């Protein structure tokens, strides 16, 4: 029941990836930045599944398993860091985190 | 004992290094000093041995004492880097120079009252080892590597035991010399790569290039790299500014070794490597080099020297100026010129080391380097005055001293190259005579200044003691020995130069006698 072409999927995932990337650049809130990063990962998985489906190889789909696991671990660690940082600095804004400059 | 049961070259490097390591590992002070004597004496002995028995040695590709120590990089597929030691006619005089100046500097340092003497000696020993290695290396990489090994202690010694501006001086010296070294390193690498040689060893390089000379453009470019790289190291104008500053701030032994020996590395490199292998490049750049050396080093720096009021600065600038002659000799690109340069290097090395030594001795008595605050020291210290005057004469190039032969040979070679430059160069001799004699006069003769009188009243100056005399004597004796018997060096030198400089000339039309084309 495939009705849309491969190119549509790939372009969609590239668009999602770009949106996520844009968000990483634009936003100041680390939590949102982090979400945008996850969005980029999801975009990659979408392309992966589409390629896997059209190429007829399962590797892409299996890779998604790993990506999901990695993303979960990454989020867990990342949020732990953000929370710990918030405890000491009371902020999650990137531009306020500049103690390391000097 | 023409054939030793060991490799004298390796020992000349290894013994000082071993002593340095032993001191670094925490040898007690008494033992450190005793061992240091060994560390400084061994290279000198090896050098003298090599000097006297050089003619009797079996020579392989023009090198005596040729030995090879693998570093794991040689072999069929390797880069061809190995510790290859050997002496030819060009390196022998300098090897001897290094040994003698090292001994003098070492003796002077051991007896000095420097703070943290152990570390000072250790660094000096490392430097000595490096110096011996530079001139004993046949492998280009090790040639470079030993140079740096000798260079680093200089920085540290300037930085720790130097004068008031030691930090700045150390920094400046480091930057300049690193830049020069890097340029020359790239030049050497270029030589290696472009020649397609399987090895960095000079003999192979020569053979390969003789068989297949490099293209003109390549030669020009590589020579430029080497010329400016080595030029910085030898204080080619306008890249010389580190030298007076560094020497002014350096402790005496370090200054002796650096100005006397280490600085010759660049010239040595040019003569041993650049000129023979890159004849076309040498021809291409000879005008530039000659102009820079004549106008910059000889005239401009000469006038600057005249304006100096600080004894050490005078010596430092004079050293820069004398390097101008050496560059001029190189610019000629002839056997005669190169031979002159080698002689001058040896002579200048000995004399400038002596001058630095004596300058420090003067400082110990006057507590200043300011020429305007000195005078009349000769009455209190006649021996010191005699030594200093002798050294000044040597540095000016009066006959009887080694410098004379060097300068003379260069002037002769230069005359064949360009009359105009010769005139400039000879006028430089006049300048150096003026400032040299004026400095001697200011320090030793005339009425004592008030400042000196005050110092002399507090610390009555004594004449040279033995710990100063012995090193000074060694240097002066060598100066005179070579001055009266230059053949002791020039025989082997001539042979090598002819062999080396002839090879590329015969190989291709491109290198058809640059000495003539210079006209």
């Amino acid at each position, binding site marked *: 029941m*495939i009705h849309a072409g491969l190119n549509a999927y790939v372009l969609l995932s590239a668009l999602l990836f770009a949106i996520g990337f844009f968000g990483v650049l*634009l936003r100041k809130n680390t939590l*949102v930045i982090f979400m945008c990063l996850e969005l980029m990962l999801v975009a990659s998985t979408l392309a992966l599944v589409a390629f896997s489906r059209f190429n007829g190889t399962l590797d892409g789909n299996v890779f998604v*398993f790993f990506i999901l696991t990695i993303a979960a671990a990454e989020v867990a660690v990342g949020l732990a860091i953000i929370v710990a940082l918030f405890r000491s600095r009371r902020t999650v804004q990137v531009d306020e985190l500049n103690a390391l400059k000097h | 004992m023409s054939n030793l049961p060991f490799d004298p070259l390796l020992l000349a490097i290894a013994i000082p290094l071993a002593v340095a390591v032993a001191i670094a590992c925490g040898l007690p002070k008494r033992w450190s000093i005793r061992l240091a004597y060994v560390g400084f004496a061994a290279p000198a002995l090896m050098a003298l041995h090599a000097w006297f028995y050089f003619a009797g040695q079996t020579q392989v590709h023009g090198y005596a004492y040729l030995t090879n120590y693998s570093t794991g990089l040689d072999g069929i597929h390797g880069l061809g880097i190995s510790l290859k030691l050997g002496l030819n006619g060009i390196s022998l005089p300098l090897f001897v120079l290094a040994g003698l100046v090292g001994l003098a500097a070492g003796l002077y340092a051991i007896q000095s009252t420097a703070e943290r003497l152990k570390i000072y000696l250790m660094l000096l020993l490392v430097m000595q080892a490096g110096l011996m290695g530079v001139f004993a290396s046949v492998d280009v990489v090790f040639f470079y590597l030993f140079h740096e090994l000798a260079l680093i202690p200089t920085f540290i010694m300037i930085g720790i035991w130097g004068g008031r501006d030691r930090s700045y001086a150390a920094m400046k010296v480091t930057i300049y010399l690193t830049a020069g070294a890097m340029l020359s390193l790239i030049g050497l690498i270029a030589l290696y790569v472009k020649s397609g040689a399987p090895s960095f060893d000079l003999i192979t390089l020569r053979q390969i290039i003789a068989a297949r000379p490099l293209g003109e453009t390549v030669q020009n470019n590589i020579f430029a790299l080497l010329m400016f790289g080595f030029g910085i190291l030898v204080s080619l104008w306008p890249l010389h500014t580190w030298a007076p500053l560094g020497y002014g701030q350096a402790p005496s032994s370090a200054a002796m070794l650096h100005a006397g020996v280490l600085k010759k590395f660049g010239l040595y490199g040019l003569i041993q490597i650049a000129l023979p292998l890159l004849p076309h490049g040498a021809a291409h750049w000879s005008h530039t080099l000659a102009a820079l050396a004549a106008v910059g080093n000889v005239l401009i720096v000469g006038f600057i020297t005249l304006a100096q009021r600080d004894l050490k600065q005078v010596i430092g600038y004079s050293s820069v100026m004398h390097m101008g002659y050496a560059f001029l000799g190189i610019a000629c690109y002839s056997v005669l010129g190169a031979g002159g340069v080698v002689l001058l290097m040896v002579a200048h090395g000995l004399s400038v080391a002596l001058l630095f030594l004596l300058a420090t001795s003067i400082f110990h008595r006057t507590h200043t380097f300011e020429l305007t605050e000195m005078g009349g020291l000769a009455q209190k210290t006649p021996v010191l005055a005699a030594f200093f005057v002798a050294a000044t004469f040597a540095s000016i190039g009066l006959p009887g001293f080694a410098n004379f032969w060097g300068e003379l040979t260069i002037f002769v070679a230069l005359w064949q190259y360009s009359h105009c430059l010769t005139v400039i160069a000879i006028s430089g001799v006049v300048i150096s005579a003026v400032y040299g004699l004026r400095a001697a006069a200011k320090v030793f003769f005339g009425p004592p200044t008030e400042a000196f009188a005050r110092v002399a009243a507090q610390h009555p100056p004594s004449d040279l003691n033995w710990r100063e005399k012995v090193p000074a004597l060694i240097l002066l004796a060598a100066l005179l020995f070579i001055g009266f018997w230059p053949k002791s060096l020039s025989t082997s030198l001539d042979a090598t130069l002819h062999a080396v400089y002839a090879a590329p000339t015969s190989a291709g039309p491109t290198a058809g006698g640059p000495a003539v084309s210079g006209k």
Partner: protein
Amino acid sequence: MGSFLFDFFAIFTVICAVGTVVNKNAVNAAMCFLLCLVGVAGLFVQLDAYLLAFLLLLVYAGAVVALFLFIIMLLDVQGKSAVSFRRLSTAAAVIAAGLLAVGLCSFAIHGHLDAPNPNYASGVGAALKPYAYQLFTLYLLPVQIMGFLLLIAMLGVIVLSKKIDPAEGAK
């Protein structure tokens, strides 16, 4: 119908993704992200990857975004998070946006792939067992590494958030 579903989910996903990026309120952003994930899961279903679709919901939507929301609320940073554009970063963002647009356009134009026959190997991804076979034969080593990865992530979270016991540590 199928094409309609694709169009619907694609537009829905993109709108939600944009919402994630532009929403001032972090909670709204998280909810948009959640919806975006649901959209992607829908697309997965259309690509016959049912298992992955539900895994995506289970792992991402069920746990990851929940965690996000949790932290956002816990830190309660919504008040301060109004997007304040600095001139420099705005300029950078505009340039980046332009580049992205150009990149995407060229991607769309040059990156055109000859789509293989969609019915080629249509069973890929739909059945469950091949996943297991792959995971436990070919990809067994990565799976093991994943185990270690999760373990260190867990340890890391514990270390990063456990109260420091003054008695401990100075051992």
